[in-house]
């Protein structure tokens, strides 16, 4: 299962500072909502597609990220086409596609540790309001780490229930999943303790060695 996580390449986008990428994503997020004509958004979508090529991420990969959301976008288009206008439908879908592809582009070209370092720096002023940037960034890391793991657990439980002939019972999946998730949370707490996490970390990331020629 993929969630737009980092893909190693030697591209200019990979080398670009995470803060610049995140700022550009924010600007794109505001920008697409200022545009009201879908025709103007088509070249923007093309540009995002070109950036995927610059990042040396195959289009197949981009489509794989977008595919699960394609049904949702089609639904948006149909609902808007039926209730308001097709133009508005295309506008909404294009905005959505641009933002999703741009966001995935940022996550696939930026190491999580670098992203977290940037977010922690950005959140530093919030410490005076009681926000702990280290804990927020750890929560983000853990979410990215454990979502695929939980997905695997759901699949395992579903297979086990199917083998027992209980294919359509949500309760028979939800209860063991809850138990396993609670156990996993308990194990994780122990692991964090054992690995010395005390909620006061400032982000720091290892730099890979330069590629040998």
């Amino acid at each position, binding site marked *: *299962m993929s969630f737009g*996580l*980092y893909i*190693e390449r030697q591209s200019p986008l990979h080398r670009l500072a995470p803060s610049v990428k995140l700022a550009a994503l924010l600007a794109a997020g505001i920008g697409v909502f200022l545009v009201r004509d879908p025709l103007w958004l088509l070249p923007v979508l093309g540009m995002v597609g070109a950036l995927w090529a610059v990042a040396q991420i195959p289009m197949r990969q981009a489509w794989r990220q977008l595919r699960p959301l394609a049904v949702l976008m089609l639904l948006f288009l149909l609902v808007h086409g039926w209730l308001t206008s097709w133009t508005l439908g295309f506008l909404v879908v294009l905005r959505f596609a641009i933002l999703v592809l741009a966001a995935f582009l940022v996550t696939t070209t930026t*190491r*999580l*540790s670098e992203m977290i370092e940037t977010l922690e720096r950005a959140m530093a002023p919030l410490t005076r309001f009681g926000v702990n940037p280290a804990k927020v960034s*750890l929560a983000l*890391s*853990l979410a*990215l*780490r454990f979502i*695929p*793991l939980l997905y*695997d657990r759901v699949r395992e439980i579903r297979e086990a229930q199917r083998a027992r002939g209980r294919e359509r019972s949500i309760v028979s999946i939800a209860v063991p999943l809850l138990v396993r998730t609670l156990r*996993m949370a308990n*194990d*994780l707490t*122990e*692991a*964090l*303790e*054992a*690995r*010395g*996490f*005390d909620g*006061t*970390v*400032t*982000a*720091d*990331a*290892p*730099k*890979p*060695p330069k590629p040998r020629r």
Partner: protein
Amino acid sequence: MIEILNVSHRFGDRLVLDNITLTLGEKRIGVVGGNGSGKSTFARLLNALVVPSQGRVLIDGLDTRREAKAIRRKVGFVFQDPDAQIVMPLVEEDIAFGLKNLKLPKPVIAGKVNEVLDRYRLTHLRHQHTHTLSGGEKQLLALSSVLVMQPEYIVLDEPTTLLDLRNKRMMQKVLAGLDQRAVVISHDLDMLDGFDRVLVMHEGRIVADGPPKAAVPAYVRMMDGLE
């Protein structure tokens, strides 16, 4: 030196460790016992993950009740299920996690991570997402993430239980080459062959203690007698 002094531990009404007194100074110590014999709780005492209800645990003179942080720098802990221990999405980020908790400078972290990746032949996996690793690779990553902290002792809770034969042998080879003193909880009796000392646990007590040649047959006899 690990000193366990009159240690008992209860979870609610259940007595899981019953008045254990031991001094552990050997380089390789194995702990065996049936399910529910208290092995995992015993292992967790050594890293201050469990503080005993009664008695004291001293690691080089440091009391686990008061010096948990210092003890966790001395004693690395490898869990049975590596998925419970790996906390970061990328291999290199997970190895760096503990070092970041020590607030080491960035170049020092990078150097140590590169060294461990190289030593345990994980360099080709450094950018890989941890959930895509095989069981053996995950266990090796879990061990590497602990070893990068350069602990003086390492406690492993059934490190080969979830592994196939090939990965089990690989893990045994890695363990045999460790410089650290190791306490290994295991059901794998072959693994204990080269160990200096084996403790046999039953119902929260140490019922046999000695070299593998004496302790392992005692364990097998005990398990046969329980059938």
